[in-house]
């Protein structure tokens, strides 16, 4: 059975002139211990999906329809207090900027032991012992001394390790990591990604890894969901999505990334930009930029369809459409 199920999730932002639909009919599952990558350009709705799962949507944003089910329990309609208990205990969160997710006025030891004692029935002594263990596991040298330091005494990479330790403190089943390496330097990024992957494997925690970096996805994830304009464009095993993309957007995105192994005079570019939420085109949201658009795309919105090893929201994969899927890779 899957650990997390998101079913037909819709997130809306009421607005003076009508309602903006920021997430539209999102459905996916995460199995226990699995790493699901969520990738897309800014504004595609990937962070919002993460925020909806951990129950931290910024008002006036709200879940307008759909369900989020964690271990068989619906969590999208829980009261604030009940959700607070689940957050931390069952779902851990890692955000982009490690400095803003730590309280600058408390030592990291206090923050860790507080989290542990809030969620687990252990005493102060035991909590501190566990906190030191967590810091050691996340690769912080001299953990026994460093535990009494304040966040500003750590470097960026070390702080993100502390945040990972904090997210794992109550032994959650799911970690939502929103751009955990974007604020870090390249040489540190690799360390943090490896750490996240290793430690989650050891503890059997599943990860929803939100990032815009396809390289990180390729290295880390089991499956990947590609988002575009508030919807999932394609979802499937990571190697298939990268090497045989079924959605023209995924294909374009892959070809736009400068490649370390190949010299090209020009990068493949996707003309135009992602539509704003108040101007999402009729039919498939990608149709104004799509090189393979045909009449059906302009009027009818595709749902996720089976497309080889992956599932893609594209009419090219509907048996009843007029066009075939040959030569989709750009």
């Amino acid at each position, binding site marked *: 059975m899957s650990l997390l199920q998101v079913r037909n999730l819709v997130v809306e932002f009421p607005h003076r002139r009508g309602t903006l639909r920021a997430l539209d009919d999102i459905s996916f599952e995460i199995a226990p211990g699995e790493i699901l990558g969520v990738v897309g350009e800014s504004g595609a709705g990937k962070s919002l999906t993460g925020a909806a799962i951990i129950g931290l949507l910024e008002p006036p944003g709200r879940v307008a329809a759909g369900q989020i089910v964690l271990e068989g329990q619906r969590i999208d309609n829980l009261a604030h207090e009940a959700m607070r208990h689940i957050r931390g205990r069952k779902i851990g969160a890692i955000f982009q900027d490690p400095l803003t997710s730590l309280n600058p006025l408390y030592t990291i030891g206090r923050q860790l032991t507080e989290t542990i004692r809030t969620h687990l029935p252990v005493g102060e002594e035991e909590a501190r012992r566990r906190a030191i263990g967590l810091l050691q596991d996340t690769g912080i040298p001299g953990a026994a001394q460093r535990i009494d330091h304040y966040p500003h005494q750590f470097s960026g990479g070390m702080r993100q390790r502390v945040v990972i330790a904090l997210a794992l403190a109550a032994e959650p089943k799911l970690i939502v990591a929103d751009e955990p390496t974007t604020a870090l330097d390249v*040489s540190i990024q690799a360390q943090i990604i490896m750490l996240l992957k290793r430690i989650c494997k050891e503890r059997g925690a599943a990860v929803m890894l939100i990032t815009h970096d396809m390289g990180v996805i*390729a290295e880390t994830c089991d499956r990947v969901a590609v988002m575009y304009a508030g919807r999932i464009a394609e979802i499937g095993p990571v190697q298939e999505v990268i090497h045989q993309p079924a959605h023209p957007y995924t294909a374009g995105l892959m070809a736009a990334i400068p*490649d370390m192994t190949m010299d090209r005079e020009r*990068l493949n570019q996707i003309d135009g*930009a992602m539509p704003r939420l108040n101007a999402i085109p009729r039919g498939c949201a990608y149709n104004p930029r799509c090189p393979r658009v045909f009449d059906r795309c302009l009027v009818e919105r595709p749902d996720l369809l089976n497309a080889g090893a992956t599932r893609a929201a594209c009419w090219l994969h509907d048996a009843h459409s007029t066009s075939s899927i040959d030569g989709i890779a750009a």
Partner: protein
Amino acid sequence: MSSGLVQANDLAKVFDVSPPWLNRVLERKPRLLLHAVDGVSFSIERGKTLALVGESGCGKSTVARLLVGLYEPTRGGMHFDGQDAHAAFKSAEGRKLRRRIQMIFQDPYASLNPRWLVEDIVGEPLREHEILKEGPALKARVGELLQSVGLSPLDMVKYPHQFSGGQRQRISIARALATQPEFLVCDEPTSALDVSVQAQVLNIMKDLQRERGLTYLFISHNLAVVRHVADQVGVMYLGRLVEVADKAKLFEAPQHPYTRMLLAAIPKMKHAGDARTPVQGEVPNPLDPPTGCTFHPRCPHANARCKAERPPLQMLRGVQVACHAVEEGRI
């Protein structure tokens, strides 16, 4: 090597980040000097691109600002087309020189005045340098410039907020091109952009270089982007160049351990799942840099000499590299 359009000779910039005078006196705190750029020399040939790569705080943006004259160097200088640029910036010649050197900044949200129309933003260098007076000719020129970066002349009556990030960056490229410069300093021009939009901007920059014979200094922390745009690559670490090489050599056979480490740190799309050794350690505090080779605390090949003696940038194995281990043939 000496015939470059742009030549930086031993460029250095020291920032005084000392506590205020009273604190120094009362709390007996010492002066603090930050050597942001410490003796950087390179040369860029006309029509070519030199890329500077390095992690945050390595001084690459300071080099950019030194080259366009936004900072005064503490030591060393820059020759542009045979002329001492920093002397010229101070004299009446400076205005002429500034026309020939322009800059593109990282954040297209911060570098365009939100209260100005695109027409005023792109036209400003033309007015400022008295190339064209206010009037139909200026409007026509702004229209041309917008077209050259793939925007419409009709866009000139819009404000920056009406454009997406990639379009804004194209507006800043149009502004930089207004004075018909020969040398463009680009400080992380695509790092604030999404990949599909990044591709648009990089393609435009390459097209413009081909059409106009532009010379670029391209600053980036993204090695994949650098591989796409550069002819030569300089790798910086803590204010110094540790390796300068042709693109092909650098990516095929990186010499300096730091370059090797940076290359190994890039996630690969093709061989996903390959185990790779992550880099150890982090960039040290630039206020208190390590002795000798500043990379030695993170370097797997460091020995006693590396800790004591700072390696000079020298020609070894066909590239310029500053490393004792490479010099001694240990790696």
